[in-house]
């Protein structure tokens, strides 16, 4: 093995979800190698899921992440529904979509304002921002609160929503749910534009780092819960996509790092818009135009901007779904089903990108095998490669500044290490 010199070593990057260390090494030939070390993961969830009855497994799967809990729960539920071959009523699907959208916006807000924007404003944390940008902070908090209100009202609880179950929703859908969610989305719209422009105004570093992008897609939408996977110019369903994934268990990391065939790829807001920007709502397109933001965009720092655009897109999306539901007076919340032996997989768009849940169930609905692939586990290899590229660009800066820049890049990927390290592919 060639000698490697550790040039940069960053411990416990702050303002991300979970514990991540980064080492940048340069070998004697001057080649740069980066290790993204996910150092969490005392709980290997799939082991806990095996042996549990399907509904219990879904609750446990949702409790692995307090940030993306809603999408984990919905994806797990859909996977079990696929195994049982049951399709919930369309009202219930729309209702769940609203929960997913609210979770999506909330996650983006937390990432952009509690974690990321501080890098560009020279602040350490959101409390420091309170001093000179108090108005903005309060508006962000209020917008975040509206998303919380929606999840609480429709889901029954702000964190780990209660109502989504296999076959639909546990309780009846009331007209008042729809009206109050509609009201909340209207108010979001009023608050959001100034807030989002605050993000679009930051000037991101230059970095041209074209990757392979993967996202859910369909004809006229940027779907969160259903769709085909597009990677590059190929289209796949979940099963065939997973078959082409290669899991790399790096000795230095507790997370599995995934590559597609032999190449790293990127998932998340930037990937979604790079592949689906044509389907943005007109208001979001207009905003892109005003800020000279074009997709496809190969700068990974632009993931922050893509998230900002998505906030506007998904508020409009939420409104139009609720508009549909408002036209009705009676809703169907669930459908009866029979438990049967089967294998179900579901793929969704978590705020951070593609999320897979796969369960094998026996005739009593007990989980016999589980496999969960999180967005961050898919992004880690790509992140390592991108850091290497960026390092080459900034290697002459003082080490402290290099560290700062690398952390900024890491944060723009919006990694969730807690999830990535907790879900590991179990060998069969």
């Amino acid at each position, binding site marked *: 093995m060639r000698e490697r010199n550790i040039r940069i070593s960053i411990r416990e990057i702050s303002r991300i979800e979970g514990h991540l260390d980064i080492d940048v090494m340069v070998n004697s030939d001057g080649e740069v190698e980066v290790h993204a070390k996910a150092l969490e993961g*005392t*709980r290997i969830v799939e082991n*806990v899921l095996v042996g549990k009855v399907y509904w219990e497994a879904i609750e446990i799967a949702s409790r692995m992440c307090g*940030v993306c809990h809603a999408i984990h729960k919905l994806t797990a539920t859909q996977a079990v529904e696929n195994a049982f071959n049951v399709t919930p009523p369309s009202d219930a699907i729309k209702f769940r979509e609203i929960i997913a959208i609210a979770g999506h916006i909330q996650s983006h807000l*937390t990432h952009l304002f*509690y974690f990321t924007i501080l890098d560009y404003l020279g602040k350490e944390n959101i409390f420091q921002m309170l001093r000179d940008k108090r108005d903005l902070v309060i508006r962000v908090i209020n917008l975040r*609160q509206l998303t919380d209100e929606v999840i609480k009202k429709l889901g*029954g*609880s702000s964190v780990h929503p209660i109502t989504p179950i296999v076959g639909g929703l546990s309780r009846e859908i009331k007209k008042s749910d729809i009206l109050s969610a509609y009201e909340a989305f209207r108010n979001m719209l009023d608050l959001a534009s100034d807030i989002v422009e605050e993000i679009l105004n930051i000037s991101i570093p230059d970095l041209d780092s074209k990757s392979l992008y993967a996202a859910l897609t369909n004809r006229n939408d940027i779907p969160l819960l259903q769709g085909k996977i597009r990677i590059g110019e190929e289209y796949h369903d979940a099963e065939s996509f997973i078959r082409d994934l290669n899991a790399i268990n790096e000795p230095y990391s507790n997370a599995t790092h995934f590559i597609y065939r032999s190449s790293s790829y990127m998932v998340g807001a930037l990937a979604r818009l790079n592949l689906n920007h044509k389907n943005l709502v007109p208001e979001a397109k207009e905003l892109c135009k005003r800020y000279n933001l074009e997709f496809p965009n190969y700068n990974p720092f632009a993931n922050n901007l893509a998230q900002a655009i998505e906030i506007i897109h998904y508020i409009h999306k939420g409104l139009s779904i609720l508009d549909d539901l408002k036209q009705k007076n009676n809703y169907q919340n669930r459908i009866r089903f029979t438990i049967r032996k089967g294998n179900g997989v579901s793929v969704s768009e978590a705020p951070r990108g593609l999320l897979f849940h796969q369960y094998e169930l026996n005739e009593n609905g007990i989980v016999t095998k589980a496999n969960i692939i999180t967005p961050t586990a898919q992004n880690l290899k790509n992140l390592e490669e991108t850091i290497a590229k960026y390092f080459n660009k900034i290697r002459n800066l003082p080490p402290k500044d290099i560290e700062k820049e690398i952390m900024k890049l890491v944060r723009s990927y919006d990694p969730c290490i807690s999830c990535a390290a907790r879900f590991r592919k179990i060998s069969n």
Partner: protein
Amino acid sequence: MIPKQKPRVGIFNLSSCEGCIVQILNLGEKLLDLLKLFNIVDCRVLGVKEDYNKLDIAIIEGCVMSFEEEVKAREIRERSEIVIALGDCAVSGNINFMKDITNKPHKSKPLSEVIKVDHEIPGCPISSEEFYRVLIDILMGKKITKKSITVCSECVLRENNCLLEKGVPCLGPITRGDCNAICPSNNRPCFGCRGLADDANIDALIKAFRDRNIPISQYLIALNQMKHKGGEER
């Protein structure tokens, strides 16, 4: 009495999903009120890390699942006046979710098995309002008490249709309430996330399950064993 200096607060997490910390963020503008009264000096998730020796209040989310976490918990204890266990993971090890009761591949310990805990805020997730209340009570020097009502009694007040009667395994009769019985109110059984109520009669609930042909869950069996061993009651 409000002390002259704002109490210094640290927020930490061990093995958890961070959902209870998210519930703190979900306080919204009320979080800003808390910031007027408390000084958060340490919280990795929020990027706060000030220099300090002693903490007045340490808030710890999550259970202890490794030696490193045990060490971390002890260190926090040593430098903190008051330690609060935040959420079911910290309070009970979230045994119904985190621990595999049948084959125990990993051991999750509640915080109180490792260090002395002064206050517990139960729930998976915690209720934001309760968190707010506990902090204010500490500041005022009030004694913190947990309400002794069960989920069942709150559920009955809300005139929900009883799930247990329909043969659904609801743990409401033995679970400490003060959550507005949100699960049965959404037509889902209570899974006991707020821990055992005072005087919980587990035997009676097991009998009620048997009478209605409801399978007895591993969780219930574990609770009962714990109780009959006399030892660690939750």
